[in-house]
């Protein structure tokens, strides 16, 4: 059960995309999302699909990992599809039953909206698949740093996020170990009434909390022993630096946006 929680689902690698500055990737992902929204027709979507495919190839990520991330939103995609299918008003009605009707326009809308959702998610997948959670937090911290002038706790949030990211796998492993240890003593977590099952969690939760607090304590001490006192004046071991490759990536996305605007203007495949 716990094995299925893939955290940030980072897929390690050394490709061009992996090595991009995380800030570049975050900003370009936002730009990519805008591209998906401004595209008004299927031709634009074709370009976006080609772009995603190209990125996946460059990053050496198998397409199945990208599709795997679509499972959680499958229900939303289907609902969106059905709502648009039945609810959009069109002239050339193909089928009608009460207030429900399907028109050619409706079919086009439904496919378009479903595709849009899928593309939005696959695009963001590329970011999380190619950026380790720690780099991602680094990037976010650096992007939000200007806002700390108006009291936004950018460093503190980033530190909390890195610590959480660092310890979630540890805690998952620990949960697994304690579960097994109690099972070895005959504990049963899987059967019985709801109340019985909730009670059965006690032998799991108590040791888990004890160890989480112990770890927190030890970490705080270890950080203080190494003179941690917040973000002020703290330097980075690997400072983020924009490089030439970030410029290339920016050009690619600008090109994509330009092409989409052209297809919009040309009117081919626009719905």
């Amino acid at each position, binding site marked *: 059960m716990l*094995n299925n929680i893939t955290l940030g689902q980072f*897929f*390690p690698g050394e490709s061009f995309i992996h090595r991009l500055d995380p800030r570049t990737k975050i900003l370009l992902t936002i730009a990519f999302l805008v591209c998906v929204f401004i595209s008004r027709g299927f031709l634009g979507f074709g370009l976006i699909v080609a772009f995603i495919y190209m990125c996946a190839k460059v990053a050496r990520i198998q397409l199945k990992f990208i599709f795997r991330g679509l499972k959680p939103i499958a229900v939303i995609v289907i609902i969106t599809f059905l709502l648009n299918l039945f609810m959009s008003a069109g002239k050339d009605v193909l089928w009608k039953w009460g207030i429900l009707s399907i028109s050619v326009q409706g079919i086009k809308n439904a496919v378009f909206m479903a595709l849009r959702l899928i593309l939005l998610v696959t695009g963001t997948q590329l970011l999380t698949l190619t950026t380790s959670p720690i780099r991602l937090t680094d990037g976010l911290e650096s992007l939000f740093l200007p806002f700390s002038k108006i009291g936004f706790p950018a460093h503190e949030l980033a530190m909390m996020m890195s610590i959480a990211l660092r310890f979630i796998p540890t805690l998952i492993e*620990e949960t697994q*170990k*304690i579960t*097994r*240890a*109690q*099972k*070895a*003593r*005959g*504990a*049963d977590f899987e059967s019985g009434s709801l109340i019985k099952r909730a009670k059965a969690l*006690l*032998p799991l939760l*108590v*040791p888990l909390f*004890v*160890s989480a607090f112990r770890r927190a304590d030890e970490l705080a001490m270890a950080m203080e022993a190494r003179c941690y006192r917040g973000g002020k004046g703290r330097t980075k071991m690997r400072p983020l630096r924009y490089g030439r490759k970030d410029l290339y990536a920016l050009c690619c996305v600008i090109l994509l946006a330009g092409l989409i605007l052209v297809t919009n203007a040309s009117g081919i495949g626009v719905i």
Partner: protein
Amino acid sequence: MGIDVRHLSYTYNPGTPFETKAVDDVSFEIRDGEFVGIIGHTGSGKSTLIQHLNALIEPTSGSVLVDGEDINFSKNKTSLRRRIGLVFQYPEYQLFEETVLKDVSFGPKNIGKTEDECLSAARQALQLVGLSEDSWEKSPFELSGGQQRRAALAGVLAMQPEVLILDEPAAGLDPSGRKEILNIIRRIHSYGTTVVMVSHSMDDVARLCDRIIVMEKGKKVMDGTPAEVFSCVEELEAMGLKPPSAALLAKRLKQRGIDINDGIYTLADLADELKNRLGGIKKGA
């Protein structure tokens, strides 16, 4: 009750970039009354292997048979886990109850014993591990590390298992705590319990076990009596394992031309052997 392991393999995170083959086609049999030691370099798959022995992990392929029945198809896993007790590494992290006595009776309670039976089993187990009576009503979190270890061990013993499996029972204890825990295990074995013990310490294994299984990179590479296994000093060193100090010393002495019998691996035996040999030389000189 024998445990029969057949072509057991286990892979963590199959189909992802983090795929690890932790156990690779391992077969062996554990017979009644044996004291088996499992040794191997860190990451060689020892902990993964032993968790298969009471169905806590389902094998990727292969099977574990107990009394001729594949335990992964057995319906009553709880009763199986009562008969095959497993003590994890650092078992003190599994303590949770308000008092030591209650914690130790958690196991018996789970297998459906009555309140009285639970308490008497718990008391018996606590006596067996030598925890004095005044600590029974204390919170387990108040005990010292070594005492916690013994309380956790008692938690498994209270179910009166026929086979006891221990993962590094002495890890992280000071020398006297180590000795005590190992003595307890030796005593449990002498009462007729089959024992399987994973250990990093060759000296401990040499002293206690009557059979040793050596694991490397998920595979079983040696299986035999301590004398057989520890005569392969070079192979063990190649795997990054340090043979017992007595076996090493015996080998060095032999290289210096002192004639010592093969198959000596405990300090006591080596001392006897040397007494005989050197005593003889002195007389002759």
